[in-house]
């Protein structure tokens, strides 16, 4: 791989061992994927934060990076942790877990990573421009930043995003190159998309059918930002989709429409969505109802508050969001409305990365195919319902 003289000096350790090791990782992966050079990236979004996934091994690796003097030289935000960093005891998270989780956060903060603890950095002001090269992990965020914002990233991992944050570069391959952003299949939507749950289901079916190929959607209607958020998350869960185009919706769709000749069209109907749902759903015992996979926007917080106002939910409805949105929702009085109704609102974490078994959960209800996929994979009986139905069930 071609390296500039400055990058060669970084490889020789002139800027310290952390920079050398980080660049070594990016070059090794770049060579695996056939990259010819490194390109500057404007920002990073780093995954691999929950102590549940990192364990001792990952935590020690992060602490070692911090001890070696790793420092971010570009903006870097952070994915969710395994708990609300303030209200973890109320969540029922064991103390041992909390100690490990705090070590992880300390290591990231000492390296200059913003402890945003959210899977939706794009909802709290981390919004790259169209065409910008970035290094993002977290599959839903990757899907959103590539598709809805038109910035460019591959599906990065925790170590590679940190390495890019520390060096300011990423290897040039995959979705960073226009030729790999062309559509591979046309998805003709013949389904009624009446709720965000339907969009989520459409994404889930698409990911199942396409693996990691780039879909070009026709008939997507006019999804709001929240619908695109949940659809992308589901696409990237059942498959490895990192980029989608939507005619009249996404910024690169018009360009992508120039490459539709001769590619296969696949039709998706409500029946396909129902079948996919049936494979996830089972009858949960005593479920906890969750909203916020991916993390709730302020609009979703407001909708939820309006829906639950005056109800009696008895701790069975949990709402997950970022600390950024939480702060706004708190100022607007929405957190209080939900909590007064017996709902719970937590920051920094979610139903996918919190240690639900250790917290004593028995079952899950969710409005997200991504959330449902993971709760089933983690052994929980799972319901998939619209927010309205979740709230109704939680009130029973």
């Amino acid at each position, binding site marked *: 791989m071609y390296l500039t003289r400055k990058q060669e000096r970084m490889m020789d350790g002139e800027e310290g061992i952390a920079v050398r*090791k980080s660049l070594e990782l990016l070059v*090794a992966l770049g060579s695996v*994927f056939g990259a010819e050079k490194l390109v500057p990236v404007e920002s990073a979004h780093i995954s*691999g934060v929950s102590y549940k996934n990192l364990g*001792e*091994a990952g935590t020690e*690796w992060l602490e070692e990076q911090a001890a070696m003097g790793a420092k971010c030289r570009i903006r870097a935000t952070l994915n969710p942790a395994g708990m609300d960093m303030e209200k973890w005891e109320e969540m029922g998270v064991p103390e041992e877990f909390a100690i490990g989780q705090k070590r992880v956060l300390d290591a990231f903060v000492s390296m200059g990573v913003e402890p945003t603890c959210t899977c939706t950095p794009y909802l709290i002001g981390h919004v790259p421009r169209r065409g910008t090269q970035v290094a993002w992990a977290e599959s839903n965020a990757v899907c959103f930043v590539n598709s809805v914002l038109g910035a460019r990233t591959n599906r990065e991992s925790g*170590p590679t995003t940190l390495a890019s944050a520390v060096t300011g570069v990423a290897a040039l391959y995959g979705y960073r190159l226009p030729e790999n952003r062309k559509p591979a299949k046309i998805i003709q939507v013949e389904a009624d998309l009446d709720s965000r749950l339907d969009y989520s289901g459409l994404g889930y079916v698409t990911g199942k059918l396409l693996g990691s190929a780039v879909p070009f959607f026709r008939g997507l209607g006019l999804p709001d930002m929240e619908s695109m958020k949940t659809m992308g998350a589901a696409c990237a869960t059942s498959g490895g989709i990192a980029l989608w185009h939507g005619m009249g919706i996404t910024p690169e769709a018009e360009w992508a429409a120039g490459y539709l000749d001769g590619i296969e069209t696949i039709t998706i109907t409500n029946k396909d969505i129902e079948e996919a749902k049936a494979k996830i759903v089972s009858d949960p015992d005593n479920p906890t109802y969750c909203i916020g996979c991916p993390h709730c926007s302020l609009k979703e917080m407001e909708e939820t508050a309006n829906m639950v106002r005056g109800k009696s939910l008895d701790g069975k409805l949990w709402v997950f969001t970022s600390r950024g949105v939480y702060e706004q929702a708190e100022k607007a009085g929405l957190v209080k409305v939900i909590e007064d109704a017996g709902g719970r609102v937590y920051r920094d974490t979610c139903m996918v990365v919190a240690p639900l078994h250790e917290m004593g959960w028995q079952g899950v209800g969710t409005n997200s195919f991504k959330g449902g996929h993971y709760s089933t994979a983690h052994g929980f009986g799972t319901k998939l319902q619209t927010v309205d139905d979740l709230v109704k069930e939680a009130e029973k």
Partner: protein
Amino acid sequence: MILKGRKVMGGIVEGEALVCMDSMSFYGGVDPVTGIITDPGHSCNGMNITGKVFVFPTGKGSTVGSYVIYRMAKLGTAPAAIINVETEAILATGCVISDIPLVDMLDQDPLKVIKNGMRVRVNADDGTVEVLD
């Protein structure tokens, strides 16, 4: 006999080969404390990869696998080197952050040419694998 391939992570080691025909997930597929393969569906289930030149097709599974490799290196239970038919990001990341030599894309199929228990010398800096037996 010398096989020529691609360096992914450098380093030079000599050791005994352990050849597996199945792809490998380090997350959930191996006990990092003992180095023993625990994936019930894996044809090398129950074998110990510690200190071996570990030959298998490629990696799979969760990205957490990179950290498992790192933990094994710290505990001294990691393989001495890895030879893949064609590697992927999780394994490459794990080997780079753990300083484990990794080569792939050899000019002959390592799963056929290298047999269990053979002594091999991996010069990952040059991207070569020498079969010593």
